[in-house]
């Protein structure tokens, strides 16, 4: 990150349009994930307004699925927020990786474009930047493409979800679990990562048995995180996340 950085041009409508059309084909996969979320949210018992508002305002699929896992007539707010933070903590790193380029544009554009930062448009933007073709329109336009398809998928899933009487019969109660597991297994794998997973599973399971309800998520997250804190990756981390590719 200390090498000379090509200048990042300011945001233009044309560049946003380019970013939008570049990511739109890939965003079709997002429709399917949105559909899965809408379906799961209906099963969980959220109201239509709540389901749409969550996709609209949170716009983070994995965290939304996790919220459904905790959702009931009552919800433990603190565990929910810690879980949301832990799942979305990767966005911290993603934002930080774009900092050398984002610092060149006015604060309004910098933070405005971060509003729609998601895995796929971030990955493409960073790739462009590292190849010497920094383009903020990719982040914004791509983000808009993902947001629109995410909302569309959510609406589809909601409609569809109300039509299915017994989702478990079709295995649809497993949408959430399978989605989350695929996100875990999508990243890079090494002995270190496997140890992290095992510690997370073990501490989470022990907390699930012995500690108060809903603490297992936080305990497992911190347990696995601590392994990472003391066991550093040898290779420098590559900008690669599980994205819909």
């Amino acid at each position: 990150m200390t090498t000379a950085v090509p200048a990042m041009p300011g945001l233009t409508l044309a560049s946003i349009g380019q970013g939008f059309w570049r990511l739109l084909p890939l965003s079709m996969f997002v429709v399917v994930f949105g559909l899965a979320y809408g379906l799961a949210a209906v099963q969980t018992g959220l109201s239509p307004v709540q389901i749409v508002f969550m996709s609209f305002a949170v716009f983070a699929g994995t965290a939304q699925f996790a919220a459904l896992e905790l959702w009931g007539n009552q919800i433990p707010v603190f565990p929910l927020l810690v879980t949301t933070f832990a799942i979305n903590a990767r966005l911290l790193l993603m934002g930080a990786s774009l900092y050398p380029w984002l610092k060149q544009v006015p604060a309004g554009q910098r933070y405005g474009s971060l509003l729609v930062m998601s895995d796929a448009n971030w990955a493409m933007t960073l790739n462009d930047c590292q190849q010497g073709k920094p383009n903020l329109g990719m982040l914004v336009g791509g983000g808009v493409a993902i947001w629109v398809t995410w909302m569309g998928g959510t609406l589809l899933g909601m409609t569809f979800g109300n039509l299915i009487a017994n989702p478990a019969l079709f295995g649809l109660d497993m949408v959430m679990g399978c989605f989350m597991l695929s996100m875990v297994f999508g990243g890079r794998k090494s002995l270190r990562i496997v140890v992290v997973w095992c510690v997370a599973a073990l501490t989470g399971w022990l907390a699930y048995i012995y500690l108060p309800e809903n603490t297992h998520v936080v305990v497992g997250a911190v347990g696995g995180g601590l392994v990472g804190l003391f066991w550093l990756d040898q290779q420098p981390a590559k900008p690669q996340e599980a994205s819909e590719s």
Partner: protein
Amino acid sequence: MMATDGINGLMVILLMAAVTLITRFGGVLVMSVVPINPRVESFINAMSGSVLIAILVPVAVEGDVAARMALLATAGVMLALRRPMPAIAAGIAVAAGWRYLM
């Protein structure tokens, strides 16, 4: 604990959105003050996978056989093809198939 009916649920979602926004802005904000060191980066990376594992533990331990088979299928396809879509589809198909046949 907080109720999730109507407007209360929307408040909960608003709080979630606020936390998510902090993570979207946070990386750039922090970097403008002090660079994130490799140890913190490693902690965050390990934590974001761990939280998903921790959520899945009760599903895997207490779910029915079909649920466990579904997770196994997802893991297997994901390791083989490295693509989420077929992995999730396989999981759902296995759960549905298992419940139909067993």
